């Protein structure tokens, strides 16, 4: 579903992404983990061209993301993206946040989009919040609205860029539960996360990055019990034993 071939990106002399190669099969859930500054966010953002790359190629669902001839708006409508800081539209209600892209991009009728938005919000436990504005919702609720907003486009792939990092601890679970539910439907997903327990539980593969490179790709079992690289051992000893 996602193929990343020999991708490089640098700011001046700083290599943000170096020789990245990765293949993510359909219906798989991949976690990107690693220390900050490793390039995880840059990599996931480049999967829908929020970030440019200098060399290499990223192919999502058969389409080259960074090719000039690609209709990027069409491609992005098939890729759901969930941000660390939610980025809900503050001037629109929860339902409007979810319905606006289907109406404007897919030209779905407003009634149909609203109906679907309500169903999605209800399925994420937000049945009472249809007409609330983002400012009236908690962080966890806002992030669930953001997930509904991404799902409203019927994406083929969902990308999550640190979806729980901006949340208070007691709200992390409700968002992780939503992502967990999505994983069980067979959605292809990539998740940048610092939630190790979560990554271990729901992900098919762990991609460990450091200093702009992919250091190790392994199953969760393998990675968390017996990581091969020293860099991963060092990282895990710091995040698991504090």
């Amino acid at each position, binding site marked *: 579903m996602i193929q990343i071939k020999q991708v490089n990106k640098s700011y001046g002399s700083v290599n943000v992404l170096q020789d990245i190669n990765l293949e993510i099969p359909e219906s798989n859930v991949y976690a990107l983990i690693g220390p900050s500054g490793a390039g995880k966010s840059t990599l996931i953002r480049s999967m*829908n061209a*929020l970030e440019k790359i200098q060399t290499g190629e990223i192919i999502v669902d058969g389409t080259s993301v960074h090719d000039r001839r690609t209709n990027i*708006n*069409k491609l*992005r*409508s*098939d*890729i759901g*993206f969930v*941000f660390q*800081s939610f*980025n*809900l*539209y*503050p*001037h629109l209600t929860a339902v409007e946040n979810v319905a*606006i*892209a289907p109406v*404007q*991009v*897919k030209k779905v009728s407003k009634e149909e989009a609203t109906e679907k938005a309500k169903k999605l919000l209800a399925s994420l436990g937000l049945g009472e919040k249809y007409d609330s*504005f983002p*400012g009236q919702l908690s962080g966890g609720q806002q992030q669930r609205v*953001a997930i509904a*907003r*991404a799902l409203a*486009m019927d994406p083929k792939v969902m990308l999550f860029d640190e979806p729980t990092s901006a949340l208070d601890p007691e709200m992390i679970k409700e968002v992780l539960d939503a992502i967990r539910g999505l994983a069980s439907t067979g959605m292809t997903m990539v998740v940048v996360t610092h939630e190790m327990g979560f990554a271990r539980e729901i992900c098919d593969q762990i991609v460990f990055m450091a200093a702009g490179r992919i250091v190790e790709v392994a199953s969760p079992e393998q990675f968390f019990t017996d990581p091969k690289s020293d860099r991963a051992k060092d990282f895990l000893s710091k995040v698991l034993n504090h």
Partner: protein
Amino acid sequence: MGSAWNVIPQNMHLLWDGLLLTLQLSACALLVSIPVGILLGLCRISGNRVVSFLAVSYVEFIRGVPLLVLLFWIYFVLGKYLKMGPFLAGVFGLGLFSAAFIAEIVRAGIQAVPRGQMEAARSSGMTYVQAMRFIILPQAMRKVLPPMASQFITLIKDSSLVSVISVVDLTLVAKNLVSTTFRSLEVWTFVAIMYFCITFFLSQIISALERRYRVSE
């Protein structure tokens, strides 16, 4: 004293016509300046350097020329070739002048909307234009309501300058009235109060809008 103030009711029909003309002129100038100003503001932040250079040049030039000179230029130079009457010259002079300031306000408003809003809109497949129209501009305009209100009020007050190109607005009516009745104090006081009433009414409307939008933040 009572007889001195009689000049106002006695000439009410003239003052009323002048007031109506001031209102019409200001409204038309606003209708020119808002879309032109928004368009200029969008051009200023455009990634296309030629487009943004042209917008910056317009804004800088217009801001650097006195409105009075601009009105004279549009009426006596442009108006001569385009067969434009004083009213139309006044509308375009005021409207295009005000647009330069509105452009700066709009630009500031757009830049005050967090970057993530554009990213969220674009990542859902919206085009740049759709994202601007449905996500960025509605938020930007709400943020800039207070400076926008000041600009609208300035426009209404500046409309008094069109009297110099023989538009018979409230100010010119007053001037003519003073020269025939010699009642400076009464006439100018009344006119000052009329301008104040218009601008106060407008600023109340905008405050109400602000309050309405604040609820949804």
